[in-house]
C-alpha cells in the first residue's frame, strides 16, 4: 500500500471519528438540560409575567386632569390621537388638575386609535399634567379594527381609572 493511500485512509477514518465525537459533544450539552434546569418559558394564560415599571402598553388618558393642550397629538409620529375641545360655557367654575393647572377648555373628544399607535411613548413625555400614561394592559384584542379606537370620555373607559391611576 502506498503512503498516499494510507494517508487518505487515515484521513477518512479521522474524519469519521471527528464527526462522531463532535456530534456526541453537542448531544452531551443538550442532554444536560433534561434534568436540573428550570424551564425558562412562561405558561402564559395561567402564569403571568409581572411587567417592569416602565413597560409601555395600552395608553390611558385620565380625562379629569386633561387640559386639552394637544401637545400629545402634535408629538405623535403616527397621528393616532384625536382631540377636540371647545370654550367652557359661561359662568362655569374653572376646575384645577391634580398638579394645579387650571382647566380652561372643555374636552369634547379624546380618542386614541390603538391599532395605529406605535407605543413609542413620545406623547406621555410631553404631557404637562401627566394625565396621559402607558398602562400595563396588554390583552385588548378586538374583533373589528374600529374596536381598537378608545374614547376616553366614555363611561366604561373612565371606569378603568380606579384600576390604573395610582393615587
Amino acid at each position, binding site marked *: 500500500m502506498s503512503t498516499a493511500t494510507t494517508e487518505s485512509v487515515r484521513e477518512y477514518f479521522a474524519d469519521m471519528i471527528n464527526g462522531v465525537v463532535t456530534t456526541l*459533544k453537542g448531544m452531551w*450539552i443538550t442532554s444536560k438540560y433534561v434534568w436540573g434546569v428550570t424551564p425558562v418559558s412562561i405558561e402564559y394564560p395561567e402564569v403571568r409575567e409581572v411587567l417592569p415599571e416602565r413597560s409601555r402598553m395600552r395608553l390611558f388618558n385620565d380625562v379629569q386632569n386633561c387640559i386639552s393642550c394637544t401637545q400629545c397629538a402634535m408629538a405623535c*409620529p403616527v397621528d393616532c390621537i384625536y382631540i377636540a375641545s371647545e370654550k367652557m360655557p359661561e359662568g362655569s367654575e374653572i376646575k384645577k388638575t391634580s398638579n394645579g393647572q387650571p382647566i380652561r377648555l372643555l374636552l369634547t373628544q379624546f380618542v386614541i386609535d390603538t391599532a395605529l399607535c406605535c407605543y413609542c*411613548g413620545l406623547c406621555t*413625555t410631553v404631557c404637562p399634567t401627566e394625565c396621559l400614561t402607558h398602562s400595563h394592559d396588554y390583552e385588548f384584542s378586538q374583533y373589528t379594527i374600529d374596536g381598537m379606537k378608545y374614547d376616553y370620555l366614555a363611561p366604561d373607559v373612565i371606569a378603568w381609572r380606579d384600576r390604573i391611576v395610582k393615587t
Partner: protein
Amino acid sequence: MQSRWDIGEPEAPTINKETEQLKSELLTLNMGPQHPATHGVLRIEIWTDSEIVAHAIPHLGYLHRCMEKHSENMDYRGVIPYVDRLDYLAAMNMEWGYVMAVEKMLGTEVPRRAELLRIVTAELQRIASHLMAFGTYAIDLGAFSPFLYAFDMREKILRIFEEVSGARLLYNYIWIGGLWNDYTDDQITRVSAFCDEMLVEAQKYHELLSMNKIFIERTANVGVFSLQDCFDYGATGPILRGSGYKWDLRKNKPYSLYSEFDFDVPVGTGEIGQPGDCWNRYIVRMREVVESVKIIRQAIAKLEPGSVMGKVPKIIKLPKGEVYVRSECPRGELGIHLVSQGESKVPYRLKVKSPCFTHVSMLPRVAPGQMIADFVATVGSIDIVLGEVDR
C-alpha cells in the same frame, strides 16, 4: 475596459457528462417571500439547472414603508420610532446612528454617563443581534437546539432593555441629547452578571455548533466572498471582516468614546475553510460577542453618577446644512445623511445607507455554481434584516 459594476454573464454551472444530454432549459424557482430561510420577506428568483444555481436575482420591496419620505414630515424626535424599525433586531444601534447625526448638527454636548450607557446598550444589542444570527443560522442548516440556547440568552438582554426603556424590541430609548432613562444600580449589576454568563455560554456555543463536523462541512468553503468583491460592492461589518480585512469603525474611525476602549477586531483567518466563506463570517460574529462583553465591562468600570440628558431645546430646529454620520452596527456600517434647510422643524431629507442592502446585492455574484442547499447557507450567513434593506 470592464466596468467596475459589471458582474458579467453568470458563469455556466458545472454539469457532468450524463446530465448534459438531459439538459433542456433552466428552471426558474422562487425562493420566498415566505420562505423561512430568507429571514423575512425577501424573494430570490433563482435559475437552476437540476440542483445547481445558475443565477440568482433578489427582488426587494416587500417591506418597503417609505420611511425616508415619512421622516420628511416628522419632527426630529418623531423620526426615532421610524429609525427603530429599520433594523428591528438591532434597534438601539439604529437609533444611535440617527441621533448622532442630529446631535452633530445641533452641536449638543452629551453627558459622559449617557455616552457610556449608550455604549453599554449598543454592545448589549450587538450581542442580542449576533445571538439571533447564530440561532437562525443554525436553523437554516437544520440544527434546532442552538436556537433555543440563543433565545434563552437573548431574552435576558431583552428583559434588561424592557426594564430600562419600557419596550422589548422597538425602544425609542436613545434620545437626542442623551438617554430617556438612567440605568439603576441593580440593572448595572445584572448587566455585569450577564457578561460573565455570556462568556460561559459562548464557549458552549462553540462546542455545540462551531466545531461540529456537520456544521463545518456545510459552511466551510461555501459561498466565498473574495476580498476584491467586498471592496467592489462596498461590503462592511462581519462580511468584510470575515473575508479577512480588519475594518471596524469603532477602531478605525472611533466615534463616541470608543477610542478609550481596548478591544480586538476579529477577522476571518481561514483556520477552517478559507477567508470569506460562511464559516468565517459566522465565527467573526461569535468572536465579536466576546469583544462586546469586554467593551461592556470596561464601560461599566468607567461609569460615574451624573445626568443622562444634555441641554436640548424644546423644539429642535437644525441650522441649514447637511451631515453624514457612520456608525458600526451589528450587520455593518450604517450611514445617515441628514439635510436641513434651516428654520424648519422637519428634516429636508434623510437618506439611510443600509449595510444589508449591499450584502443582498452580492448574492448574484456568489450564487452561480452553488448547490441550492449551499445557497441557503450563504443567504443565512450574511444575516440580512429586510426592514433595513427595503426601508
